[in-house]
């Protein structure tokens, strides 16, 4: 019996050394150390051993149990480590496969640029003031120093409605009159607003021109608003919008509602001013029209132009978006092609 036990013990130890997986280990454990395992049964059999050999038998079986239990645990650890090493080594995935798509939305590129404008101008104290798309001729033109039949009306081709003197605004400038009258408290309060909105012009739709487009106009009216402030404010905007160090230059121009009037160019941010196709090799990009608010417009807004002064500027978010992202066709904006929108 003792011999048989020893043989069994040696066999079990050898078997254990050959086991390489969890299932094998569990089967071995059940057959050896489990409730019905031979070793457990051998322990239980102590009572049936003749008393003179019982102590030695018991000692020996307990030795076996300890040895096999220790060996089992060692083997289990080894097998687990091997399995882990095997898993780390073999269960690799192709990390270049695309990820699971998540549904993503996005705002329109024009909205993105408008928000950039809102943020930058808000930091300088310019709040958003929105006014209507359908305007009367007076507010869109006459009150802005563009009387009927004035040559400046040729500069903007207008969409008229079938209602007399009602038009689609050709620029956001009527917002100058509306904001001055609304917020200026009869020409007694300084104001600083930007006027974003959709404008409409009767033009052929081409890669470069559209019948509707956003403008963001801004005005500052106060008792001490000067051309130097206009230059400084626009320069500050350019630094924020186009990067620190962005240079601006001012050229004389003409807008009926400002005097003096200036066109604003920013150093081409694509070529750093060295000249490229986008800036037509001039090193400059036109980004805004601006000027000191015309005395007539101040008057029409309720202010006394001999005491109050102000500056105004206007920019096109679509144009700036086009420049920033290399968009060569303005028709992309209202085409709503998802393949375009998804790039923002």
């Amino acid at each position, binding site marked *: 019996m003792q011999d048989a036990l020893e043989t069994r013990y040696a066999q079990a130890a050898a078997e254990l050394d050959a086991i390489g997986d969890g299932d094998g280990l569990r089967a071995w454990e059940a057959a050896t150390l489990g409730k019905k395992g031979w070793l457990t049964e051998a322990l239980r059999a102590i009572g049936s051993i003749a008393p003179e050999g019982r102590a030695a038998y018991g000692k020996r079986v307990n030795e076996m149990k300890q040895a096999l239990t220790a060996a089992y645990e060692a083997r289990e650890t080894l097998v687990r480590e091997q399995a882990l090493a095997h898993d780390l080594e073999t269960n690799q995935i192709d990390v270049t*496969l*695309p990820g699971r*798509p998540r*549904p993503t*939305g*996005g*705002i329109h590129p*024009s909205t993105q640029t408008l928000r950039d404008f809102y943020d930058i101008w808000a930091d300088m*104290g310019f*709040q*958003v003031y*929105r006014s209507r798309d*359908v305007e*009367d001729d007076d507010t869109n033109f006459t009150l802005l120093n563009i009387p009927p*039949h*004035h*040559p400046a009306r040729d500069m903007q081709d207008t*969409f*008229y*409605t079938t*209602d007399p003197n009602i038009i*689609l605004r050709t620029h956001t400038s009527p917002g100058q009159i509306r904001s001055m009258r609304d917020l200026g408290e009869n020409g007694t309060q*300084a*104001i*600083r607003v930007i006027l974003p909105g959709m404008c409409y012009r*009767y*033009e*052929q739709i081409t890669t470069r021109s559209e*019948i*509707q487009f956003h403008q963001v106009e801004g005005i*500052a009216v*106060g008792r001490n608003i*000067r*051309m*130097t*402030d206009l*230059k*400084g404010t626009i320069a500050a905007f350019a630094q924020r919008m186009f990067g620190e160090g962005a240079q601006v*230059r*001012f*050229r*004389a*121009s*003409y807008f009926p509602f400002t*005097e*003096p009037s*200036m066109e604003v160019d920013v150093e081409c941010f694509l070529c750093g*001013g060295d*000249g490229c196709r986008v800036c037509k*090799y001039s090193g*400059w990009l036109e980004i805004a029209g601006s000027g*000191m608010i015309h*005395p007539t417009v101040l008057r029409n807004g309720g202010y006394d*132009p001999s005491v109050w002064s102000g500056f105004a500027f206007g920019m096109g978010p679509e144009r700036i978006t086009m420049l920033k992202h290399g968009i060569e066709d303005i028709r992309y904006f*209202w*085409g*709503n*092609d*998802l393949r375009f929108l*998804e790039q923002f």
Partner: protein
Amino acid sequence: MQIPLSWLKEFVEIDIPPELLAEKLTTAGLEVGAITYIGVPQTDAEVIRRQHSVNIRYPKSDHLVWDKQRLLWGAVHEVKPHPGADRLVLAMVDYGAAELEQCVTGAPNLFEYKGVGPLPAPLYTVIALEGAEVWDGHSDEPKRMILKEKPLRGIPNRSMVCSDKELGISDEHEGIMLFRSDLGHKPGTPAQDVLGDVVFHIELTPNLARCYSVLGVAREIAALLDKPLRTPDYSVIAEGAPIDGAVSVEIRSPKHNPRFTLMLLRGATLQPSPDWMQRKLKLCGQRPINNIVDVTNYVMFEMGQPLHAFDYDKLVARAGGGAPNLITRLANAGEILKTLDGKERPLVETDVVIADNRDQAISLAAVMGGFDTEIGDDTTNVLLEAANWDFISVRRTMHAQKLFSEAGTRFSRGVHPSQAALGVQRGIDLMRQVGGGTVAKGMVDAYPLPAPIITHTLTTDEIERIMGMRFTADEAAALLQRGGFTVDAQGDALRVTVPDTRLDIDRDPVIGAADLIEEIARISGYEGIPTTIIADEMPKQRPNPSLEREEAARDLLVSLGLRENISYRMTTPEREAQLVPAGMTPSFETSAESYVRIANPISAEKTVLRHTLLVNLLENAAGSARYAERIQVFEIGNVYLRRPGQPLPDEPRKLGLLLMGGRSAASWVGGDTSAVDFYDLKGVVEGLLAGLHVRGVGYGRAAHSSFHPGRSAEVKIDGQAVGVIGELHPAVAAAFDFEGITVLAAELDLEALLNAANPLHRIRPLPVTPSVYQDVALVVRDEVSAAEVERVIRMIGGKLLRSVALFDVYTGDPVPAAHRSLAYALAYGTDERTLTDKEVAALHAKIVKACERELGATLRA
């Protein structure tokens, strides 16, 4: 407008490169859109940057630069026949060499001289010698070529007499360039030095009417470069019988015709104008016609005053042989005038005309002369008109008659009346010089409405108030004087008189001051104005919830996976009518009078302003559906509703949503690509409203003509309808090319949503006791809505019921027909104490009972 550099130099010294001049003009508001080089090289920008310390850049020009050794001024002395070819001749050209060069040419304009022997006076042209680079005159595409020695029909030939096209001056290749005069240069002079030039293409804003001429631009250059201005010679050699008695003028409406001047030239000969004049006109883009007409154009281009030449004898004939009396007046309705272009034009009452003694219109004032009194081949006596017209009426006429001329362009922007007298003098004497004859002494000058002399007082304080920088009175005066203003400085005040060339300085003292300050800024240069930050008080800052909440709504929709559209706001009523299935009553405003209608639509697809965003979203989706499996978009924007009795329409903001296609994108890992349904859309709306913290939201069945009646809902906030969401009516989907496809759409009143947003929403504290969860499945009849079941559960559950979550809707065996099972997970709990199982069981049973009693529900086993 094309302005040649050579002509500018007659009036002002220009000692900077043309490219730098163009930059200075552009910076001063005269935008040089392009520069055309004729034969001369472009200046290297790097050289200008270095020599003038300016930051200037421009594209490289690819024009032909005339080789100074091989393209020379030549004199053709004889044109010999080609011994072997009828269609070729041999031009014998002196180009400064010892012997005449024999050029074989087919130029048709030399044939009249063929075989007549040595010419009495040589003809001048440009000769290209072997090795010279020219444009290929025979190529349709621009193509350069190097001239090589090549015998033509047996005659050696190593040079060429050149056409305009070969030199890159114009596309003219009918014959070679031929001048009758040497233009002041000896044969052999490099052609560059004779004909080389630079032409500026200048775009003028409406305030720069004074610059519509070479002199006008020269005046600006003189101011910018601080150089003296030379003016044309306005003197007249008049030796003929006086004009008095030969013609008279009657101005009936001085407002429309402030000034009208006439001079008379007798015995002139109509012939081509001289080479120098033709050349300058061509450089300005004007085709030469004859000496008389050319002078009218020449003076207009030179100093900006349009002129009109009448055949005096035709006027005399119309006056029955007596002295013509020219009447200027407004046209009569129904009056017809045949203009120079041969068109019979019905006139309107705003047109201004010149009429003859019988009061018959003979000329359309300012825009175009009449056919019956124009200069003809037999004209000898020329009556020259230089008038001044109200620019507004000229603009009206140009638009009414759709007639745009160089004269009209200038008059419609404004010409100072002082220029009329100068123009007529300059014109009549030039006509005498190029056409012969004798100028009648004197001028008819009717000037009933003299231009006011405008004088302003400008203080250095006012300059500083607007510009933010200080000029001394002397500095400011010097700048204005450069601009041609007369200035008298007294202390800090300048007394400024506006020159009689410009109309852009307003009479109003405040506006006039602003105009003068602009001149100071422009002439001193904008780059010299410093930059400051606004020192003025910060205005009152106001809340702007309307914008802030709109942007928050955009962000929420984006986080819900939707992409923003921005669409055309113009559409047609017909396109919007497609939202209403045939035979149904529209649920939104479709009446013709409710539309803002465009009077001048750009296309038949854009005739009115929209009433709805749905058409935009559907049309966008139809475009996207060609390539996209999945479309989830929104648009926020105005719609436009005409209001009875109000001039301006209502412009409410709307939110439109559209979902169609797969729920999520197809992918190699699978993903739910089954089609979206009502509940996807509702999830978006719920997410938006929850994000805005809108309370009191309810959904009820909708009855909207554009939506599926069984699968659409009206969204309500506190019982007020704010829009419809749901599956588009199948007939509507079909109308937008989505036959048989489920399209989910919504249009909501954005103003109402945003007004209901609650930025001060209170939070719930985190629970401090655990919840006890109990599920319940209730079988109810189909007509009992989920909202109704939830209402009863919540009503009974009261404060102890923390949440109600529907987790299953089941129909089919064993649920009876026309019934469904709704399964809810209920969480009970209160922070006041821990609920006992018994309490929860009792409340749960009470809820079930109430549902049984009030909704006829049965507990599902």
